[in-house]
């Protein structure tokens, strides 16, 4: 096969069996390329199972810095006979299929439009290692070594990474380095090295970091001043608490006494977890919980209480594919409506939609400020793709001048000097936000009864219709105030005026921006775009949609939930909001978005009804 050499632009996928230790080898592969200064975007595709089922690891290598999923596979590293049939079929024409040739390839699977490379990995491991566990582990490291030869990677970078990784456990360095070298030799002996896809050192990652969104969110909670975390384990949110716990142990334990400046309670269920968060805020600490869709469903009743009784609450929701248990280890953006309107009665909650680890960090820290400023639940809506995959991200930043915004809390002296009667739900400043008091503040002033039942401005129970309406309307006023504080959308306009816009949020961002780039360079179609960052929508969101004739809403769910939210909150003609939906549980790809938009535009420009006013 005659081939062009392609440098730093390809997608490689590893097919493994879970529980075999492949994750750390795959990780090593990604980090090595990252250290060579070439942008990467790795994605884990794993089953809801601990051992024995197929798992995949897909790495996008992109010199241009495209970090979304591209679509298509150039190189498949097949280490799982179970899924081999599917895996070989998935390789793009002109790609490579690398497999363990200890067992010969079934001739039925053979394809002549790709290159097939067999490496006797297992056989070599059997010779080199006695212990079966070691055979398995080093086979993984070995294929990373082979890839060094095949992709022309700098093997020294990998050796360095290994010695960094095992610092303090030097005994482990030598056998790992040996495995890398053996793999390298095997590739040289069994294939033409390097192959057409290659990696060359670049300086394209700058000071970026490689971090998963959940770790960033957990750190955000430490920096944001959370002292109580209450949670119930659920994939893909568990690692948020793991990270919070890890960094609390680093930063929040008194080295002398061992006393902790934090408390983590593993609750009996999600109802209890959110109850504990609400209780903590009620007595005045910053607290949070982390969960996924099923947990959010359980938390609904309490979220209504927090909304109506006006108690700050912070919740990190890492979405996975629903409904019900759905595909618990696959990604989706399908809890958008549930989060926005969680609970019975007229309720709505501040939502933040991060697209990068840096935003996970910043928005989590910000959530604590917003929750206290507006005395209401704040939901950080992340997803499995962002939360559990290492993403290349701008470094995390913190301004040491920054102070926590605790919102309107009356102190002992405020109460002491207060002439008028304290009213918990009085709108003193006409922004809808009343003043809170915390238990234990003053012996005779400021106490009130917190309740989920209807009450007047003085927190006294009432069922008088006008009083109820007054309160509900004040909550609406508070909501409008919040729309001025939450992060504004990120709007990217083309230099020419254009009548079509593209709306995205969360993890659909990277693929959408890449698709827009290629629509422009390959098809001459340039479109404006807007990344929605939060709910309530700030004025700019409505303006952007109003300015465009048609707006695509790109999202990863079946029911076009963000589109519904937009139509519900504004009164746009639904025809103008074109859903662009991806919901098979894998992260949305740039190719898919590009194709959908291009096809729609081609179709629409030829259809008489919509005319050709777009360009």
């Amino acid at each position, binding site marked *: 096969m005659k081939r062009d050499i392609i440098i730093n632009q390809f997608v490689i996928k590893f097919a493994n069996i879970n529980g075999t230790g492949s994750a750390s080898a795959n990780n090593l592969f990604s980090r090595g390329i990252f250290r060579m200064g070439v942008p990467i975007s790795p994605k884990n595709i794993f089953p809801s199972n601990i051992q024995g089922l197929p798992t995949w690891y897909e790495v996008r290598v992109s010199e241009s810095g495209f970090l979304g999923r591209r679509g298509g596979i150039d190189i498949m590293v097949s280490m799982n006979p179970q899924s081999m049939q599917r895996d070989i079929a998935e390789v793009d024409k002109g790609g490579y299929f690398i497999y363990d040739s200890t067992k010969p390839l079934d001739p039925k699977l053979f394809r002549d439009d790709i290159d097939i490379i067999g490496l006797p990995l297992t056989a070599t491991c059997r010779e080199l290692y006695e212990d079966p566990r070691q055979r398995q582990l080093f086979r993984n490291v070995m294929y990373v070594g082979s890839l060094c030869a095949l992709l022309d990677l700098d093997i020294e970078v990998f050796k360095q990474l290994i010695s960094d990784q095992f610092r303090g456990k030097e005994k482990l360095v030598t056998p790992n380095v040996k495995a890398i070298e053996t793999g390298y030799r095997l590739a040289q002996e069994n294939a033409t090295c390097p192959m057409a896809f290659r990696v060359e050192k670049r300086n394209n990652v700058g000071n970026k*970091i490689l971090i998963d969104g959940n770790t960033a969110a957990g750190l955000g909670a430490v920096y944001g001043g959370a002292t109580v975390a209450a949670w119930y384990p659920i994939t893909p949110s568990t690692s948020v608490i793991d990270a919070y716990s890890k960094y609390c142990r680093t930063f929040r334990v008194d080295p002398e006494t061992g006393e902790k400046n934090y408390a983590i309670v593993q609750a009996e269920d999600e109802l209890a977890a*959110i*109850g504990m968060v609400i209780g903590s805020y009620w*007595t*005045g600490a910053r607290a949070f919980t982390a969960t996924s869709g099923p947990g959010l469903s359980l938390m609904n*009743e309490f979220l209504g209480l927090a909304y109506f009784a006006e108690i700050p609450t912070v919740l990190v929701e890492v979405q996975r594919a629903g409904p019900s248990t759905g595909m618990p280890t696959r990604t989706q953006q399908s809890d958008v409506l549930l989060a926005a309107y969680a609970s019975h009665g007229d309720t709505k909650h501040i939502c933040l939609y991060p697209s990068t680890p840096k935003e996970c960090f910043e928005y989590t820290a910000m959530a604590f400020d917003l929750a206290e400023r507006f005395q209401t639940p704040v939901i950080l809506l992340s997803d499995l793709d962002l939360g559990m995959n290492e993403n290349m991200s701008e470094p995390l930043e913190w301004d040491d001048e920054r102070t926590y915004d605790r919102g309107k809390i009356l102190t002992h002296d405020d109460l002491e000097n207060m002439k008028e009667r304290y009213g918990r739900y009085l709108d003193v400043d006409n922004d809808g936000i009343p003043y809170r008091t915390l238990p234990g503040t003053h012996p005779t002033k400021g106490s009130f009864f917190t309740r989920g039942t209807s009450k007047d401005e003085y927190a006294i129970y009432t069922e008088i219709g006008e009083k109820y309406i007054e309160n509900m309307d004040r909550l609406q006023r508070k909501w409008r105030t919040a729309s001025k504080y939450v992060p504004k959308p990120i709007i990217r306009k083309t230099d020419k005026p254009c009548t079509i816009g593209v709306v995205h949020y969360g993890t659909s961002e990277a693929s959408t921006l890449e698709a827009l780039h290629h629509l422009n360079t390959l098809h001459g179609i340039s479109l404006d775009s807007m990344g929605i960052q939060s709910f309530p929508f700030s004025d700019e969101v409505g303006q952007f949609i109003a300015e465009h004739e048609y707006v695509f809403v790109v999202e990863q769910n079946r029911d076009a939930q963000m589109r519904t939210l937009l139509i519900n909150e504004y009164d746009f003609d639904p025809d103008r909001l074109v859903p662009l939906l991806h919901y098979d549980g894998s992260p949305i790809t740039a190719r898919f978005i590009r194709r959908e938009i291009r096809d729609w535009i081609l179709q629409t420009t030829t259809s008489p009804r919509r005319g050709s006013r777009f360009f």
Partner: protein
Amino acid sequence: MSYTVPSFRHPNLPRNELGYTSKDYEGAVSTLCAGCGHDSISAAIIDACFQMSIQPHRVAKLSGIGCSSKTPTYFLGNSHGFNSVHGRMPSVATGANMANRNLLYIGVSGDGDTASIGMGQFVHAVRRNINMVYICENNGVYGLTKGQDSATTDLGSKSKKGDPSPYEPIDLCALSLQLGATFVANSFSGDKDQLVPIIQAAIAHKGFAFINVISPCVTFNNVSSSTKAYDYMRQHMASTNTVDYVPTADEITTDYQEGTTERVTMHDGSYLNLHKLEAQHDIHSRRSALKLMKDYGAEDKVLTGVLFIDETTQELHEIMKTTKTPLRNLTEKELCPGADALEKLNNQFR
């Protein structure tokens, strides 16, 4: 609708150490049915706190939903209160306690709130040994939703509508003993002399103090077939001990007879004198408590009093080793690692 009590103060009302009269411990006027046992429990809480000279604003009162859960409005008007959602008071109390360990937490619940919808949270609050007083105002019926059977309704007992309950009741005292509760008491709303010192002892106890108070519902369950009716309790109540709570400050004047009285020192230095009627009962033995309850039950008697105390255990903060400073008092200075630390972390991610 609840009202604020007029602030008229009788000049001759006795004052406690803080200079407060019992009026300062009252709340809004109750809206419960006249004669409801729950109101007597509120009165007992008021007395207990007044006598112990507790700063009302240092108390946080929490409840779930039900007639019983409404009562925190009717006592300690100068305390913050939280009427949460049905059956979930334990989690709210846990979080509140995590955030500020220096307040006194009094939780009020009903038998529906505790033994049905809230059973999960209740058992876990017991298990975690949260430092709080948990009072279950047990009337064997759902009062607020008008008379349905609860999980503590006696087998065979007829509701107002006439159907006998076909299920075995849950005994909350036995359950909490088995779960490892560190303070368990049983009492009757109509017996203030017993209830007030029990509440005081529960307040002095460090850890989860559970008090089951049989509290007749005059509207739906004060029927002859119920063990939660006034008449039944008056006739069938037996006490394991009479309780006499002695605060830290008081001099030890009560003389007690060796063999019939046991003194239990609470962790704050106050103590309980238990004048034993039942010599075999060892207040520190779960087994003895459970056996005695069974024995009396067999004779159709309800055993009341302090059934079990363990003053040696650790409450949740001690187990978790949280700082002595209430977490809510910590500021950026203690909580935020700062920009330099973050830059070091960034490097670990490169």
